């Protein structure tokens, strides 16, 4: 445990450009032994690129990328990882057992086919051709392939997309079991509850950079925002002047208000405009929280530029 502070995977100022577009623009990431780090962010934030760099699928234009202290394109480093990617079309005619046997053959000391299948809950599917499985079953098989090599570090890219609630819970349980055995996990997900259920640390990405890193509680505190919408003739400036309102705009004749104290705002709204209709209150989704975080980051960047000028 004395080595716990040394990262087993890290990005250090990693830059990756596709054409003129910087998918990663100086990204820093450290993953420590035994922890589960959730990588969150809107589409196009650079999550997949970050993972691709750590898996050695693409090379960084600048900065350093290390996996177990080595270049990820070295097979010795990758023998210690398991991988579940977002979209991999596996050979449709191969049976699940054959896929497991093939993937396990790449590793020095893999689990048995039976053990991997039990862990991922696919023991009843071993004789079935991959193409005949449902989407959720295919995801479970991919999870089995990820863990079959007894990895020290597991990369899970959106693992529960397409799964029903029960399958999701089972997968979470399996991930917890692997964590208990000392395996580390790097997880990307769109579901905040998934990060909440599993993650030790959360890292939010936007525009190729890490804009927030901390525990799940710290992230939740930033997502406490709620959305209030209604049809009202109240002027925006009035609404924006209320102390509880952090954001207000009009779209298609509808008022959109962001606030941490929805109850107080609704009370004021109803008092101020008796004609108010179609009132809705929603907890901000994770995507909105990202937008919020991203906007903060953008404003900070703009302010910096202004100062520099």
């Amino acid at each position: 445990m004395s080595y716990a502070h040394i990262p087993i995977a890290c990005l250090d100022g990693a830059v990756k450009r596709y054409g003129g577009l910087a998918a990663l623009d100086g990204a820093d990431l450290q993953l420590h032994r035994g922890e589960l780090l959730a990588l969150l962010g809107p589409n196009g934030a650079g999550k997949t690129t970050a993972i691709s760099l750590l898996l050695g699928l693409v090379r960084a234009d600048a900065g350093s990328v290390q996996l177990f202290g080595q270049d990820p394109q070295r097979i010795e480093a990758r023998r210690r990882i398991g991988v579940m990617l977002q979209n991999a079309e596996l050979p449709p005619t191969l049976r699940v057992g054959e896929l497991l046997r093939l993937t396990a053959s790449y590793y020095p000391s893999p689990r048995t086919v039976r053990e991997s299948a039990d862990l991922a809950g696919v023991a009843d599917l071993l004789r079935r051709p991959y193409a005949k499985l449902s989407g959720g079953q295919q995801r479970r098989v991919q999870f089995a392939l990820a863990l079959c090599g007894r990895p020290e570090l597991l990369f899970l890219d959106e693992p529960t997309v397409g799964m029903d609630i029960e399958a999701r819970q089972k997968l979470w349980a399996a991930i917890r079991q692997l964590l208990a055995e000392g395996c580390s996990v790097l997880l990307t997900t769109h579901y905040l509850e998934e990060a909440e259920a599993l993650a030790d640390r959360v890292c939010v990405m936007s525009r190729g950079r890490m804009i927030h890193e901390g525990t799940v509680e710290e992230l939740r505190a930033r997502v406490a925002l709620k959305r209030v919408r209604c049809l009202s003739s109240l002027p925006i400036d009035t609404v924006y002047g209320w102390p509880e309102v952090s954001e207000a705009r009009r779209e298609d004749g509808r008022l959109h208000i962001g606030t941490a104290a929805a109850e107080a705002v609704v009370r004021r709204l109803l008092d101020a405009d008796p004609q108010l209709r179609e009132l809705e209150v929603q907890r901000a989704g994770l995507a909105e929280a990202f937008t919020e975080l991203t906007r903060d980051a953008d404003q900070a960047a703009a302010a910096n530029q202004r100062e520099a000028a």
Partner: protein
Amino acid sequence: METVTSVTPSVSAIDMPRSRVLGAYLEEARSECLRYMRAPGFMLPIMLFPAMFYLLFGVLMAKSNGADAARYLLASYGVFGVMSPGLFGFGVSLALERDGGLLTFKRALPMPPGAYLLGKMLMAMAAAGVVILLLLAMALSLGHVTLNPFQAGALLLTGMLGVLPFCALGMFVGTLIKGQGAPGMLQLIYLPMSFMSGLWFPLPMLPKFLQQIAPVWPSYHLDMLALASVGMNKGSLLGHVLVLVGFASVFLLMAARRLRRHG
């Protein structure tokens, strides 16, 4: 390496015993064969297309030209036939698997480098063997070609090994083009190259210019070897073999480099 191991101590062995690495190669080849045998729709047209071509132009149209012409056509259509599994079996499947994300997944896994390609290579060699056997069967039964067993064996061997330079070429094209664009591009290479190497009509019947540049094409050199195996080319073969080996190595290296670095 020493500094690395001291930074990240690990209980698991990072070194993989040679027997397990070999096992990975075998598993990969086995899976590759299994998946295509269960889905014959992909390989079957690739093997039957040149066989049909030979039946039409090499057997039915060429009946009156005598035994030597029939043997000549067997060799050149044999070369035409083995180019197909090399270029298409290899190039198209690679292009499709790059598109579908399978190759990305395999590159992220610690699959031994080359295992994936070796599996496909064995498949292409097997398919090339089937093509030659099909052509031999038609030539001997319908085309009135006379070959001794040694010549037939030599042609089969030439075909099965001769597919490899075209695997390398197909693979390189497969690394350049993703998905559905690959078959069209490969046709653009396959058909003109076959024609210009004298596989459809003997070279002396082609324009002078095409005769002069024919040695540029790998299929020309393979044709020389195939003709020799049926006893119709008494010249030196070493040069042709070397050209084919060189051609295969250059394209293999370029393609492997592209695959390893960019996928």
